[in-house]
């Protein structure tokens, strides 16, 4: 282990500086830059061992931790009597037992030139989401290959993901060279093999090096065991590659506004992290999406105003004019602004156990903008092992696919390849609040750029005023056979009788026309409700009181329709009939068919019904007759009697 001894020399040199001239050391440390990188590879490629080695060689392990490590190595280590560096890194108790890394762990070490943050990424297929997470903040990726095994399926997958996330610096670390007797031919063959694959997926260049994380070859010092290798050591390479923020500084100025700083009437500042470019007082800027222009008056910080601020800095900008600007807006260079659009093609990485539902509304968070979005059925998914494009109806956990998405408001964006900040986004489930997907905008769709709202002279208020009524959507939801249509029909008759302009949209009737192309899968049910919601909205624009009778089993879609309407316009009526009662009635004989298996995806039998949590009206049909329920609803609606 001569290499370790050499590595120790470097440490002693640093230590000597600390001991003899702490001020000089601090001065040096103060000017260090930072590089974030990820390590990825298959299970047992030696990632944790490599990171443990980097920490050990840069003296980031203290004596007590080392004692604990030696102790643990003997108890659960896989390296016999030698130190098992992987134990340093494998933090969580569960994985210590399983002997594999199951989540992203972040580690830190310093050299004389840089501070490093390492994301240790798992090799298991089911944890692709963790790898994508680790890669999203990385300047560089170290792809580990076991010299005995060569390029594996997982090597391809991880390389593809790193490339997808936009990592430009890729290091191919051919590890465990000690186990192949430091054989150059083995190394060369692997590099050639990987090179062909890399080229096929668009990786333009990579740096290959023969290493041993366990023995320490070519980590901090050149190894005497690989005289045929002339390139840099891993650490030398990490110390010199260009970091992402330097690349970002050369791009046009963009700053998403996080927060408006308004301590008093005399100060109004816009706080944010500069995504790309630089800014200085006097610069002409434009606020997106409004397009209003102004000049930068001040760049404010606690330590005094700045002459200039660059990509990666968090600042507060004061503008020369009173311009409307709030969280979600983007301040950019006046003559080179980003675009805004509401329909895109995007690449999605699905991160959740619950598969994507085409048509369902999710929250989309991009920079500081949060909007509602729906995702179309994917154009294709990528088989990450073969890079083939396959047809798919949805995206399952760890799937990567390309799909069109539509937002409810314009997004200020850039294609992901031009900027991570305005091109990368996450999707959030509206019910569980889980982060379900990561996405990258590829481009906006032309139709979004060319379809504009037509301003109409007769407003919805004018339509409603003529009819002397408040537009409403009375949304009846409940199991099949619960009595939705019966009650809705009675309500409409009563409203009609008192001169109200109404229209009843019935589930079965709509499926004969507008929605006859839809079936009863979850995705089709969602699309069914989306279309009905849009039709109902148009009818309320026309001033009508709309009644709908649909099972509408999912909370998310009912909420989506509610969000289409003006405040207070959507009235949710839960026709609460227990399954046994509805099934006993079985007016259309459907339950019988469902029970016998002739009818699939039947709500209440083999498809769920999510009952409303706070409906505006609840009708218990085992306690209240349809006539009484209808009367109660109409009275409350017209303000004739207090709501019960």
């Amino acid at each position, binding site marked *: 282990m001569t290499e370790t001894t050499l590595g120790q020399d470097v440490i002693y040199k640093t230590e000597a500086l600390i*001991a003899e001239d*702490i001020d000089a*050391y*601090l001065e040096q*440390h*103060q000017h*260090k*830059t*930072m590089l974030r990188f990820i390590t990825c590879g298959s299970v047992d490629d030696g990632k944790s061992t490599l990171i443990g080695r980097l920490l050990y060689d840069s003296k980031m392990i*203290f*004596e*007590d931790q080392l004692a604990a490590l030696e102790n*643990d190595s003997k108890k659960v280590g896989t390296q016999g009597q030698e130190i098992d560096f992987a134990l*340093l890194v494998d933090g*969580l*108790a569960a994985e*210590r037992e399983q002997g594999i890394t*199951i*989540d*992203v*762990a*972040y*580690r*830190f070490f*310093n050299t004389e030139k840089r*501070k490093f943050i390492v994301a240790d990424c798992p090799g298991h297929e089911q944890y692709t989401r*963790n790898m*994508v*997470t680790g890669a*999203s*903040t990385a300047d560089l990726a170290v792809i580990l290959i076991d010299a005995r095994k060569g390029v594996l399926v997982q090597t391809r997958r991880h390389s593809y993901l790193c490339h997808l996330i936009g990592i430009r610096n890729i290091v191919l670390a051919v590890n465990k060279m000690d186990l192949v007797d430091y054989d150059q031919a083995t190394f060369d063959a692997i590099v050639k093999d990987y090179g062909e694959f890399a080229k096929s997926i668009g990786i333009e260049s990579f740096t290959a090096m023969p290493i041993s994380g366990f023995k320490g070859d070519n980590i901090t010092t050149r190894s005497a065991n690989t005289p045929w290798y002339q390139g840099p050591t891993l650490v030398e390479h990490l110390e010199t590659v260009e970091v992402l*923020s*330097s690349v970002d*500084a050369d791009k046009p100025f963009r700053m998403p506004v*996080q927060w408006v700083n*308004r*301590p008093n009437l005399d*100060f109004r500042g816009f706080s944010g*992290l500069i995504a790309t470019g*630089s800014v200085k007082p006097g610069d002409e800027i434009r606020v997106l999406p409004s397009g209003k222009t102004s000049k930068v008056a001040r760049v404010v910080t*606690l*330590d005094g105003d700045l002459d*200039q601020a660059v*990509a*990666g*800095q*968090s600042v507060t900008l004061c503008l020369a004019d009173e311009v409307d600007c709030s969280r979600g807006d983007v301040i950019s260079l006046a003559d080179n602004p980003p675009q805004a659009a509401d329909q895109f093609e995007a690449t999605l990485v699905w*991160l959740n156990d619950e598969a994507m539902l085409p048509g369902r509304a999710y*929250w989309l*968070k991009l*920079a500081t903008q949060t909007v509602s979005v729906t995702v179309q059925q994917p154009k294709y998914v990528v088989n990450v092992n073969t890079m083939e494009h396959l047809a798919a109806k949805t995206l399952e956990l760890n799937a990567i696919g390309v799909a069109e998405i539509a937002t409810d408001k314009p997004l200020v964006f850039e294609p992901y390849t031009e900027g991570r*900040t305005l091109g*990368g*986004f*996450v999707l*959030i489930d509206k019910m569980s*609040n*889980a*982060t379900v997907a*990561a996405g990258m905008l590829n481009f906006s769709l032309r139709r979004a750029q060319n379809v504009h709202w037509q301003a109409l002279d007769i407003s919805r208020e004018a339509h409603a005023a003529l009819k002397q009524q408040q537009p409403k959507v009375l949304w009846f939801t409940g199991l099949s056979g619960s009595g939705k249509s019966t009650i809705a029909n009675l309500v409409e008759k009563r409203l009609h009788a008192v001169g109200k302009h109404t229209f009843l949209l019935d589930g079965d009737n709509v499926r004969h026309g507008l929605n006859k192309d839809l079936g009863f899968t979850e995705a089709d049910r969602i699309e069914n409700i989306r279309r009905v919601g849009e039709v109902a909205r148009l009818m309320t624009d026309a001033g009508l009181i709309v009644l709908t009778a649909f099972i509408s089993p999912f909370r998310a879609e009912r909420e989506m329709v509610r969000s289409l309407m003006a405040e207070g316009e959507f009235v949710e009526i839960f026709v609460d009939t227990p399954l046994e009662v509805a099934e006993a009635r079985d007016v259309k004989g459907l339950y019988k068919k469902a029970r016998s298996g002739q009818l699939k995806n039947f709500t209440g039998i083999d498809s769920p019904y999510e009952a409303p949590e706070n409906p505006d009206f609840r009708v218990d049909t085992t306690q209240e007759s349809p006539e009484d329920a209808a009367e109660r609803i109409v009275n409350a609606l017209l303000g004739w009697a207090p709501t019960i």
Partner: protein
Amino acid sequence: MALDAKTLTHLERLESEAIHIMREVVAEATNPVMLYSVGKDSAVMLHLARKAFYPSPPPFPLLHVDTTWKFQDMYALRNKMAAESGMELLVYQNPEAAEKGINPFDHGSLHTDMWKTEGLKQALDKYGFDAAFGGARRDEEKSRAKERIFSFRTASHGWDPKNQRPELWNLYNARKNKGESIRVFPISNWTELDIWQYIHLNDVPIVPLYFADERPTYEWEGQLFMADDIPRLEKVLGYRPEITMKSVRFRTLGCFPLTGAVESTAKTLPEVIQETLLTTTSERQGRVIDKDAGGAGMEVKKQQGYF
């Protein structure tokens, strides 16, 4: 400043990241709070908050979950910093722990459970905070290395390490249902050296106990401690420990009977940093908490709601 694009230093990048995180929380949470333990990490976190919102004062209160056993110097700095930053200071002491007279000598790890873990949960519930900033760092301990920056907690304050939200780019998901909350760690990516360096470069006020001075000390169970409140110490121990004046300082600050002192002559920040770098025992070693429950001490504590 040079005309060519500036490459930020590691401290500038860390500072900017922390400020960005704090602003996201303020923009998206309903009722945030900053947990303030008066240690050096809290000091840096508070300084970053003042930078993030300047010229406004940070738009959230400071919460000190007190055990009544902190060093007197800590209480003094706490009150001074709250006044200086223009922030509201909330001090919470678990009434049940006070009533039962829970103390570090008689009750061992129960002291931490009752005053800190339970105290924190009670305080968060009492004020209905939905986001709490904490000064934890990923380099402190193995299980911390895997925690997210926005760390989601169930309504009962539990942490599920297997079910953490993926955190991509610098996009943080602060959405939650009623009763649930998030712990936010803006200095996750800082190391102990970064903290010291930042304090040095920014003149961040810290408790003088971090610097060496002649102080009254006593030995207890083989470790050196400072006798910060001799009458109280005597009352709890039932005897007056032998007090020796020694030049000592502290690498980490907590309850004075639980925080081991180290003999030192480092009176300036560079000297403290020098000593820290040359020392061969890690920071948390002076604390008793991690060694409980075998190798997984902190992980178990966190699942129960300890910060």
